[in-house]
């Protein structure tokens, strides 16, 4: 399988160069950063003299979630107003934060807070991804602080995250078990070193203290196993926790009997406590990384999270989108989402990529209808009138599309069946063992049965496999791939068809020059003249040209009166000449109109031509090629124009019959359903992919900064590079291989242990020693197998420390 090792996807030259911000392989030979987000944030840190961030991070930096458009803060206004409504001189506001991954993030936010005047205190809880902001009334600009922090790739949102009861529950149980078990172990040492009933006072004290603490461990730590076993029995299911619960109960009962018979040195309380603690640790490990990955993002609150600015008379209030009716007057600020079809009262520029996949912002005249799902991509707020209510728009169906309920996977069914058979076989063996040794007396028969229950170790299923999953999740997290659903890695090895959205998924929602060499061919005068125009506009073509010209050494002239004509281009009047940079039909009518072509002209005569295309994510061709070589069927499904999709398919060397354009959200989902044999992976970023997400076996997104979609995905990845997908598929295969080996080792140990026990060659005490020894051995094997490929943080850190400050 070509994805047996994810990192092998990278060429050697790209792998040897690390990003100056996050330390990931850059993916493109000669580049300094792995993605534009890293470049932006690195430059901001240098500019603001915050490079200590790298020292604090110690090499554990992840690529940031930077956004291509301004982020709407419509949700913040009512919260700030409510916080400032009380009479207290200080105001408090709790917010959720997206993107916190290490101590350096906390340091950075605190450093920015200390620079903002009027702030009283700022407390971040990185575990939950929450922050508490306290400020002096009227002296602190909350919106500015939030915007300042968001520049660095974080995102704030209303406080919705809560610590789940189950994760808190396991932490408490684990803490109690560890504390009590350590003390039981200390008491047990005295028995191992010869404390006997001859020293009656001390012996009795240590025995009863051990029993009291072990009772606490059993009551607190083993309770989840007793509960699961009980629930399983009530429903007629033989749960894996049944033999665990039975083993714990039997060993505990036997130890109690020994204690009452003044034979505490023959009790198994230390082994019992260690076993229970390890089992709780396994459960907690299984849950911890997934909880952290889920908390990395803002909570998706569905349609209630979508806010709209509604104008009533002379006032504007921010209300939830479902409260808006047809005919309501709306104010759409830059970055705001249009939640229902709206008729514009004035012209504006809107981006439709989230809803249709159309890559470039489109200009709408006054009176035109902007579709629901568009974002205001302009620089100013636009007035509009709701043409329909929110419920009548397409958004509720897309936002509410459910991706849960995929049902158990093959792997899940395998583990359930394995656990059931394990339970049946272990219980049967205990009965057989007791029967075989019945003629040797009840005590001997009980010893054999208990030894069988204790020595047969379910730690492969109970601890080693959760540990293996945790190690893989953590490895992926370090490489910027964050898994949100616990069964994803079990589903991925089944994937035989991968379907991609185009805009924002395989492309970067920005433009690049089709032929970068064209810049080098410009004379210095023309180069500076083009830069003088492009640098003064925020249009995607201008941003693309300005970046390329700046890299080529263009100089910005001090004064230039540049006029921007929406939908046409830029104009500069100089020395009686009309210099234009824009669409061919407007700038130089003699030049034939061509999609993606921008012309620089002087008095209508062309001086230079710049063809732009959508920027492709680094690694796209390589990853698509490797996917096809691995025998996977690769599709491109886009809502964008069919001609653009066909052109893009040619660029990434995808067969034309596998590239479908002009698809509505329902049509995308229909294609997924048509090709799906419970083996499809869909990777997309827009809300128009929501139905396809629900139809696929697994779904992921590179757009963790966008609303709605991250909350529906099984995983998301950070940074621009598509190699993350290869990492994920490789990790899923690594995990499957490791799990198979763990099961094989566990089977071998259990078979030997059962044979020895049935032959009467072991005692419960020896079994109690063998079982944790086998657990530790299998855990060490798992750790060595899966933690070996951990990237050395020092490599990345040393590179980063050398970055100019």
């Amino acid at each position, binding site marked *: 399988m070509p994805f047996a090792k994810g990192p092998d996807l990278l060429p050697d030259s790209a792998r040897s160069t690390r990003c100056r911000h996050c330390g990931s392989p850059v993916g493109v030979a000669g580049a300094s950063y792995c993605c534009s987000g890293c470049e932006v944030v690195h430059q901001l840190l240098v500019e603001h003299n915050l490079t200590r961030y790298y020292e604090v991070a110690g090499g554990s930096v992840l690529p940031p979630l930077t956004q291509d458009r301004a982020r709407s803060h419509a949700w913040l206004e009512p919260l700030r107003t409510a916080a400032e409504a009380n009479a207290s001189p200080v105001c408090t506001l709790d917010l959720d934060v997206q993107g916190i991954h290490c101590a350096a993030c906390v340091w950075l936010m605190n450093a920015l807070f200390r620079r903002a005047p009027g702030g009283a205190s700022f407390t971040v809880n990185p575990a939950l991804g929450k922050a508490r902001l306290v400020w002096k009334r009227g002296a602190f600009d909350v919106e500015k602080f939030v915007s300042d922090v968001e520049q660095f790739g974080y995102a704030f949102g209303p406080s919705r995250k809560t610590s789940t009861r189950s994760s808190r529950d396991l*932490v408490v149980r684990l803490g109690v078990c560890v504390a009590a078990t350590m003390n039981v172990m200390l008491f047990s040492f005295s028995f191992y070193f010869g404390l006997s009933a001859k020293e009656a006072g001390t012996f009795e004290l240590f025995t009863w203290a051990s029993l009291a603490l072990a009772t606490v461990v059993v009551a607190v730590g083993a309770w989840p196993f007793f509960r699961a076993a009980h629930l399983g029995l009530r429903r007629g299911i033989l749960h894996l926790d049944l033999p665990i619960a039975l083993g714990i109960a039997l060993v505990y009962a036997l130890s109690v009997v020994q204690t009452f018979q003044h034979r505490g040195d023959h009790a198994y309380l230390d082994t019992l406590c260690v076993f229970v603690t390890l089992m709780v640790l396994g459960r907690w490990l299984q849950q911890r990384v997934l909880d952290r990955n889920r908390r990395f993002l803002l909570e998706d609150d569905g349609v209630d999270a979508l806010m709209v600015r509604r104008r009533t008379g002379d006032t504007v209030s921010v209300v939830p989108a479902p409260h808006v009716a047809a005919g309501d007057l709306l104010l759409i600020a830059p970055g705001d989402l249009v939640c229902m079809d709206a008729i514009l009262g004035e012209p504006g520029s809107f981006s439709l990529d989230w809803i249709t996949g159309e890559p470039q912002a489109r200009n709408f005249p006054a009176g035109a209808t902007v579709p629901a799902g568009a974002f205001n991509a302009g620089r100013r707020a636009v007035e509009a009138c709701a043409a329909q209510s929110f419920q009548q728009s397409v958004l509720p169906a897309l936002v509410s599309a459910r991706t849960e309920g995929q049902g158990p996977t093959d792997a899940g069914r395998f583990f359930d069946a394995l656990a059931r058979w394990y339970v049946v076989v272990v219980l049967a063996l205990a009965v057989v063992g007791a029967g075989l040794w019945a003629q040797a007396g009840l005590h001997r028969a009980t010893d054999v049965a208990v030894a069988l229950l204790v020595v047969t170790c379910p730690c492969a299923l109970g601890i080693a496999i959760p540990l293996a999953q945790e190690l893989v999740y953590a490895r992926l997290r370090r490489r910027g791939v964050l898994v949100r659903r616990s069964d994803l890695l079990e589903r991925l090895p089944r994937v035989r068809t991968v379907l991609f959205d185009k805009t924002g998924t395989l492309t970067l929602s920005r433009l690049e020059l089709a032929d970068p060499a064209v810049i080098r061919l410009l004379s210095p005068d023309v180069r500076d003249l083009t830069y003088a125009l492009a640098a003064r506009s925020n249009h995607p073509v201008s941003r693309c040209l300005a970046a390329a010209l700046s890299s080529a050494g263009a100089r910005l002239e001090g004064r230039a009166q540049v006029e921007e004509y929406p939908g046409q281009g830029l104009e500069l009047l100089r020395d009686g000449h009309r210099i234009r940079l824009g669409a061919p039909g407007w700038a130089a009518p003699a030049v034939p109109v061509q999609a993606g072509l921008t012309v620089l002209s002087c008095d209508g005569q062309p001086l230079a031509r710049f063809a732009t295309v959508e920027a492709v994510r680094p690694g796209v061709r390589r990853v698509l090629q490797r996917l096809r070589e691995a025998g996977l069927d690769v599709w491109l499904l886009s809502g964008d124009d069919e001609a653009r999709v066909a052109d893009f398919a040619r660029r990434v060397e995808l067969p034309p019959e596998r590239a479908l354009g002009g698809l509505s959200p329902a049509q995308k989902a229909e294609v997924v359903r048509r090709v799906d044999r419970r083996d499809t992976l869909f990777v997309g970023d827009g809300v128009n992919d929501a139905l396809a997400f629900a139809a696929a076996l697994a779904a992921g997104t590179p757009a963790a900064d966008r609303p709605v979609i991250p909350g529906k995905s099984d995983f998301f990845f950070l940074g621009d590079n598509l190699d993350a997908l290869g990492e994920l598929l490789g990790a899923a295969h690594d995990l499957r291989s490791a799990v198979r080996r763990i099961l094989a080792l566990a089977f071998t140990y259990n078979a030997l242990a059962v044979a020895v026990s049935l032959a009467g060659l072991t005692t419960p005490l020896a079994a109690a020693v063998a079982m944790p020894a086998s657990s530790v051995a299998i855990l060490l094997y798992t750790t060595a197998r899966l933690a070996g490929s951990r990237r050395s943080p020092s490599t990345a850190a040393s590179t980063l420390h050398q970055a100019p400050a």
Partner: protein
Amino acid sequence: MSVLSLQVFVSLMLVLAAVVGLLYSVKQADHEHADRLSLLPLEDDEGE
């Protein structure tokens, strides 16, 4: 014997205190606050 009893009692009280501390920390939802707490020594020398 009496010294041992006292030591065992103190040991158990320490266990109890640790558990109570953990419960309080979990209730405050700051039990995974190691990232923030590790930065506290840095706060004094951040002369912005």
